């Protein structure tokens, strides 16, 4: 606050924006982003605090929870500040504000307000203060943010309010003979207590908090011991990969910046995980958290950690400044997605994939991954990301800081595009890029206004990873194309459904490979209007 009693605006040094615009960012730059995230969290918590319309449900007024939280904060600011800045708290705050605004759904509203009460209990336990207040319990479970989850014995269904008392680090929940008493902070796992575990020192593996996803609450999905152990092992491998390059730059990540990992889609080791990450996601409400399905190996996990943290960085930058004027129309091609994206989504993709491109660039020479595979992904993603950056740059929708950012991304990518890559990896990367774009256009665009509008249903990208390695013994049409035999590929595509956009994309790209020239360029530019010479292929 300045001498006039008003607050100074947050400022980002241009050199820090320039660093972030390369796709990387120094510790100082990231610290500035995190300062902005703190302000955002404060303002949104304040907005909740100022609401006077909390439902008069079984918990009564939220004032008792706010007071307990404030008491704990005064006693141990450091502990409670870390709790309140936790990613899942951010998700809860954002979700509750959306529910109050009518733009999100969820369970009974008093239970969502009631998460504040659970937060207050956690804060009191961490700070060593006293608290006595009702808390919502769902199906007998009481999640305590940042600490774990209490499982009350007996038969419980639905949402109920129970009394919680905290005194000298001890928590008592319920009353009479059914009361459960324990010391949750650093308490061991038991029949009634599931502690929050860490995938690595300082990095929670968040499988319990109801607000660990991108918006509304979820039931817990506790990993069994074997799956937890597998996560720790693959995360350690990923950290080792990332540790090979520590100087800040695009594609590099200090794992200490990760605030939590939310395991998704499995709680046990069977069936075995896929080699690549099947699903990952991030929300701007939860800086530094990432939802990830466990892959088989550390390299792919490391790639995903880089990818998702790029989203957190960009979201934090967007919170500081509007980077573009987005009408949210979903019409743009994103090379890593099946669906059309709006401009903000495109910017997120570009920023995430410049990180991925840099990641694979490092892997070409540091021995942590197969150099040929790394070369392929580097060649593919630099090409695709540069295409998206051009779309953004020519959109006429960027603000001044947005132009600064996108120009920086373009500079990084243009430099990388001048770097040499082994010919075969380069060829496969270009072919894979053509195939994805071609299939996207066939599925999402129509050749003429009179043509039927495409259904734009989801379609899986099964080619990008197939093309990562040159097939030793090709069998399918795609494999022949990846093996640089477009003639054999063409004869095999001819046996398949010519109307299927996946097949048609293969045929068009194989033709363009066999017959380079103006016709090929026209076909690749607008495949949705293309008709192969001598073909009566309908559209």
């Amino acid at each position, binding site marked *: *606050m300045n001498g006039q009693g008003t*607050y*100074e*605006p*947050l*400022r*980002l*040094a*241009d050199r820090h*924006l320039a660093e972030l615009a390369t796709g990387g960012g120094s510790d100082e730059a990231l610290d500035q982003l995190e*300062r*902005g995230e703190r*302000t955002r969290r*404060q*303002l*949104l*918590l*304040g*907005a*909740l*605090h*100022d609401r006077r319309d909390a439902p008069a449900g079984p918990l009564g007024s939220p004032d008792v929870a*706010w*007071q307990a939280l*404030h008491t704990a*904060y005064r006693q141990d*600011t450091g502990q*409670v500040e870390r709790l*309140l*800045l936790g990613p899942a708290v951010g998700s809860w705050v954002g*979700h509750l*504000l*959306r529910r109050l*605004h009518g*733009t999100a759904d969820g369970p009974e509203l008093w239970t969502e307000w009631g998460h504040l009460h659970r937060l207050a209990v956690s*804060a009191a336990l961490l700070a060593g203060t006293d608290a006595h207040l009702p808390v919502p319990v769902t199906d007998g479970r009481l999640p305590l943010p940042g600490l774990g989850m209490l499982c009350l014995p007996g038969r419980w269904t639905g949402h109920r309010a129970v009394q919680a008392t905290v005194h000298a680090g001890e928590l008592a929940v319920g009353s009479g003979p059914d009361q459960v008493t324990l010391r949750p902070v650093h308490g061991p796992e038991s029949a009634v207590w599931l502690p929050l575990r860490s995938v690595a020192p300082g990095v929670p593996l968040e499988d319990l908090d109801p607000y660990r*996803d*991108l*918006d*509304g609450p*979820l039931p817990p999905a506790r990993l069994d011991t074997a799956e937890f152990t597998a996560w720790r092992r693959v995360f350690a491998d990923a950290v080792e990969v990332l540790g090979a390059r520590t100087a800040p730059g695009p594609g590099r990540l200090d794992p200490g910046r990760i605030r939590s990992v939310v395991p*998704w889609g499995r709680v046990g080791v069977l069936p075995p995980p896929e080699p690549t990450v099947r*699903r990952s*996601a991030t*929300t*701007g409400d939860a800086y530094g958290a990432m*939802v990830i399905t466990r892959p088989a190996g550390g390299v792919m996990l490391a790639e995903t950690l880089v990818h*998702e943290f790029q989203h957190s960085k*960009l979201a934090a930058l967007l*919170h500081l*400044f*509007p980077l573009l004027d987005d009408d949210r129309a979903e019409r743009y091609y994103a090379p890593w997605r*099946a669906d059309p994206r709006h401009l*903000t*989504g495109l910017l*997120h993709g570009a920023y*995430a994939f410049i990180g991925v491109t840099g990641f694979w660039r490092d892997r070409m020479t540091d021995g942590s991954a197969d150099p040929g595979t790394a070369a392929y992904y580097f060649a593919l993603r630099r090409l695709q990301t540069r295409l998206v950056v051009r779309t953004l740059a020519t959109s006429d929708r960027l*603000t*001044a*800081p947005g132009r600064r950012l996108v120009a920086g991304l373009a500079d990084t990518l243009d430099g990388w595009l001048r770097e040499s890559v082994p010919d075969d990896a380069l060829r496969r990367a270009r072919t894979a890029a053509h195939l994805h774009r071609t299939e996207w256009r066939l599925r999402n665009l129509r050749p003429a206004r009179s043509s039927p509008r495409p259904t734009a249903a989801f379609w899986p990208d099964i080619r990008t990873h197939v093309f990562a390695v040159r097939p030793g013994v090709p069998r399918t049409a795609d494999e022949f194309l990846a093996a640089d035999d477009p003639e054999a590929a063409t004869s095999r595509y001819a046996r398949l459904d010519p109307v299927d956009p996946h097949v048609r994309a293969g045929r068009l790209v194989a033709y363009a490979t066999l017959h380079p020239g103006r016709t090929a360029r026209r076909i690749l530019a607008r495949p949705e209007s293309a008709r192969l010479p001598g073909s009566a292929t309908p559209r």
Partner: protein
Amino acid sequence: MDQSVRSEPTSRESAEEWESDLVDLTGVPLAPSHGLCLPTPPERLLIEVRRPRSTSTGGQNPGRAD
């Protein structure tokens, strides 16, 4: 475009710093309390947080970093 954001550079060649419409609340308690007067959140912030979200469980495309 949001007119409340003072984010234009001070020179065409380079700016020393970029100014946000978010204020610096370093040192201000994070836990809200009565009597703690925080500034009103900028409308841009409220519009963004109120926008509907997708979830990891919805649809077949990966969750969106919106």
